[in-house]
């Protein structure tokens, strides 16, 4: 992704102008134009990243600077049951990635193939994506509460109520279902963009030769979508690791116990409620390494599929 644009922009710039003085003035102006952007990113993101790494090697608290303790906070994470639980939960979350990718893909292909009502589906499926996770979490916390509408409806059918968000067995799966429900519209959008590049005449030719619908899907459409599938897998994974905070905060508060505590939530809890900023900083760096590897994969996939 990044490399592509750089190449494109580089091509757009003609050879050196004859006037060197003007060139220097242009360079000075350019740096001034860039100054606000660079300053903001440096102050709020890049410097804090290095500062956070430094902090993670100390025993600092909210009020004292602490002292250098090397990898102590990282070693501590290995023994911390909360951290272990959060990693296990993240593992469960990541197991759901194939579903997060496949369901939108199937829906997008169906829309692309002309399912009746597709214009309506297209616009409505995206509505949950634009709503804040706070809004979605609040509404579902009512509906799924022990005295909520879902249990009320089940009762009418003679099924006993379940404390969906209050017991460990169901809290994480239910949270995941809500997360996938609230983001699948994004996946549909990405796959629809990808489907517009699948050659229509190939699909048509196969159909004229008598290929069945599932054969066309399996042998033509899905192979053609491979770059989109890879892309969607990577951004879904990054999204699941870094954008579930709002939903968990409103829906379950990480609980019951640690049932829905994922790494990003634990970082927040360690920083605030547990008052262990240095430890939180170490957890942050661990998360950064994981998402960094994924982002590197994303950039590689995107630059390989430059034309898509």
């Amino acid at each position, binding site marked *: 992704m990044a490399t592509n644009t750089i190449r494109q922009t580089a091509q757009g710039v003609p050879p050196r102008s004859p006037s060197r003085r003007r060139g220097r003035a242009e360079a000075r102006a350019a740096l001034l134009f860039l100054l606000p952007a660079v300053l903001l*990113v440096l102050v709020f993101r*890049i410097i*804090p990243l290095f500062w956070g790494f430094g902090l993670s090697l100390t025993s600092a608290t909210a009020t004292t600077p602490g002292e250098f303790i090397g990898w102590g906070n990282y070693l501590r994470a290995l023994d911390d049951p909360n951290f272990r639980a959060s990693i296990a939960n993240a593992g469960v979350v990541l197991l759901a990635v194939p579903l997060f990718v496949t369901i939108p893909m199937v829906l997008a292909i169906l829309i692309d193939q002309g399912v009746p009502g597709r214009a309506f589906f297209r616009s409505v*499926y995206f509505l949950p994506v634009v709503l*804040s996770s706070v809004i979605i979490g609040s509404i579902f916390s009512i509906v799924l509460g022990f005295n909520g509408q879902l249990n009320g*409806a089940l009762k009418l059918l003679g099924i006993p109520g379940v404390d969906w968000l209050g017991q460990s067995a169901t809290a994480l799966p239910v949270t995941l279902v809500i997360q996938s429900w609230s983001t699948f519209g994004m996946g549909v959008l990405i796959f629809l963009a990808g489907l517009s590049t699948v050659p229509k005449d190939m699909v048509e030719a196969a159909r004229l030769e008598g290929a069945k619908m599932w054969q066309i899907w399996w042998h033509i459409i899905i192979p053609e979508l491979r770059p989109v599938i890879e892309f969607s897998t990577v951004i879904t994974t990054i999204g699941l690791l870094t954008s579930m905070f709002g939903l968990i905060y409103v829906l379950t508060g990480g609980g019951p116990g640690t049932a829905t505590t994922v790494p990003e939530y634990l970082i927040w809890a360690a920083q605030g409620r547990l008052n262990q900023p240095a430890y939180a900083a170490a957890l942050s760096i661990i998360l950064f390494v994981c998402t960094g590897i994924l982002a590197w994969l994303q950039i590689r996939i995107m630059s390989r599929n430059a034309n898509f």
Partner: protein
Amino acid sequence: MAGAGKRQRLALRLASIPMGLLALSCLYPMFFAVNNALKTRHDYLLDRFGLATQPTLDNFAQAWTGAHLDQYFLNSVIATVGAVLLLMVVSSMAGFALASLRFPYRRFLFIVILSSLMIPVQVVLVPYMRTMVALHLINTHIGLILSYTAFFLPFSVYMMTAFYSTLPRELIEAARIDGAKLFQVWWHVMVPLGMPALVTLGIINTLNCWNDILIALLTMQKNRTIMVGISALKGQYSDQIPLFTAGIVIAAAPIVALYVIFQRRIVSGIAAGAVKG
């Protein structure tokens, strides 16, 4: 679809049933919130499922003033409008420089800005908060505006750079021959030309800022935004669902309105961003 067989058409028609139910489920939460917000507490306790038979706006009035949502709403408006405008200015300036001007370290600076995409708030949570404290920006609107700008900037800069690099450089040369300074070229040529992209960015960033919870939760505890306010209401008003859902409707209304009006732009802008950036 000329050659589509009967069986395929039947399969698609069958698929449209679960797809239709899924579509209804996407509309249900907002319906649920509006419907229950119109009930009195008593009505809700009697019937949690049915339509509000005697709709009342009391809950909205009470949530707006009694639960301080008016103040929270205002805070969100200030932060969102401020950050969206600042994002437009900063990303248009940076995009202009990166796409149209020649200077040393251009590539390097582009990569520096873009690579910060890999640093979400969670990854710098503690040092970010300490930075805010050190700069006396905690609980201030300007602090939240600067934070939103910093965290939503890379994508915006990327989009403006891509947009401006499709414009011919002769434009700038022509304007400079007329004696215009580069700042004037930016303001009088690049900003108007960049408007289509800037408007799309503005809408997408409005969604980002208005919907944010984590950044506001960290830095605006004494000066809540609407989303922080709603998440706090959840605990306080758990036995007053109609009042709580009225708050939800108030918090979601601007975004739903924006989506209804600008649906095409939002969808195409986000698709472009997702696929390219």
